[in-house]
C-alpha cells in the first residue's frame, strides 16, 4: 500500500497512513467540529475558522466550494468529511455522489435497486 497505485480498490481510496498525513490539517479541523461551540464558530465564518485552524488557502477553498472529491483526493478521511458535511448541511449521499462523480439522483437510483 505504499504507492498510490496500490491504495485504490474498485475506484475507492484506501485511507492509508500516507493519505492521513497529507490530509492531517483538514481532518483535524473537521474533528474539531465534534464540539458544538466549534461548529457554531465554523458556521459563523468558515474561512476565518479554517484559517485559525492552520489550513492554507487551497484547503480552505476546497471546503468553501464543497469539493468533496478534492478533499478526499488530498487526504480527507470520509468519516471526517462527513463532519464538515454535517456542519454545512450536506448529506452522506451528497458527499458520496460527489466523490464518485455522479449526481445524488443517480446514487438514489442505485439505492433503489438494492
Amino acid at each position, binding site marked *: *500500500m505504499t504507492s498510490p497505485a496500490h*491504495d485504490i*480498490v*474498485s*475506484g*475507492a*481510496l*484506501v*485511507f*492509508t*497512513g500516507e493519505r*492521513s498525513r497529507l490530509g*492531517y490539517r483538514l*481532518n*483535524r479541523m*473537521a*474533528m474539531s*467540529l*465534534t*464540539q*458544538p461551540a466549534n*461548529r457554531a464558530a465554523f458556521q459563523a465564518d468558515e474561512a476565518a475558522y479554517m484559517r485559525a485552524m492552520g489550513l492554507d488557502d487551497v484547503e480552505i477553498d476546497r471546503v468553501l466550494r464543497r469539493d468533496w472529491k478534492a478533499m*478526499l483526493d488530498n487526504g480527507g*478521511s*470520509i*468519516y*471526517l468529511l*462527513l*463532519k464538515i458535511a*454535517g*456542519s454545512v448541511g450536506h448529506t*452522506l449521499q451528497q*458527499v*458520496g*455522489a460527489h*466523490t*464518485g*462523480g*455522479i449526481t445524488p439522483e443517480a*446514487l438514489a437510483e*442505485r*439505492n433503489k435497486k*438494492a
Partner: protein
Amino acid sequence: MAQIVGGIGSSHAPSIGSAWDKGLLQDPLWRPVFDGYAAARAWLAEQKPDLFVIVYNDHANRFFFDAYPTFALGVGDLHAQADEGYGKRDLPDLKGDPDFAWHIARSLVEDEFDPTICQEMTLDHGVLSFLPALADLAVPVIPLAVNVIQHPIPTARRLYRLGLALRRAIQTGPADRRVVVMGTGGLSHQLHGTQVGRFNAAWDNEFLDLLESDPERLAALPHRDWMERGGTEGVEMIMWLAMRGAMGPNPTRAFRNYQVPMTTGYGLLALNPDQVAVQPPST
C-alpha cells in the same frame, strides 16, 4: 465464575440509529430490519446477560489521528455518548464494569495483545446505532474499539485471535457474570468513489455462512479481498471475527437476519456459544 452466554454480530450505521429515534419500526423500508432486532432482543433477554463485551469501531469520534489506537479497551465506570458532529441523541450514558474490564486488560496483555487502556471512553454509532434496538441499555458494557479506518488496520486473523483471547479472558473473569460478546461492522458498503453505494448481498451471505461454519477461512483473507468484495468501508466486517472467536469451536445459530434497506447490507446474527472449557493460550 463468569460464563459466555451468547454472541451477537450486527451491522451498525448512523441510519439505524436515526430510524430508531424516529420510530420507523413499521416503515416499509425499516420494518424487516427492526423485526430482526425485536426477535434477537427476545432471544438475548432469555440469556439474562449482565455484561456486554462489544468489539466495534470508532469513526474518528473518540480518537483522532494524533494518536489512533489499533485496539482500545474501555475500563471506566461510565461511557458517555460521543457527539459525532450533529449533536447528541437522547440516550443514556452506558455503564461500564471496571473490575471485570481491568481483568480483561490483564488477560489480553498477558496474551500479547497491546490495547490502549481507556479510563475515559466515549461511544459513537459503532455501538449506539444498533444497541438500543437490541438490548436493555442498563446492562453494563465493556467496549473494545478497533482501528478499521486508518491503514494499517489489524488483519482478519488478528481479530479472530482477539476473540480467542477474549474467550479466555472472560472465562477466567473475577466475578459471576453472564457475558454476551458482540462484534459489529459492515456489512458490505461503499461510502465514496466511482462505485459509491455498491453493496454485495452474495458476499454478505457467504460471509454469514462462513462465519458460522469456517471462520478460519475468513481469518485467512487479506484486506484487499475484503475491500474488493465488501467495499473499502465494508472491511469493518472483520470485527465479527472477534465475536466468533469468543464463541468456541462449534457454536449454534440462534437467529439470523439479512436485509438491504438502503445500499448497505444489514446483517444480524445470534449465536449460542460452544460450552467447551477454557482453551489453552495459542502461541
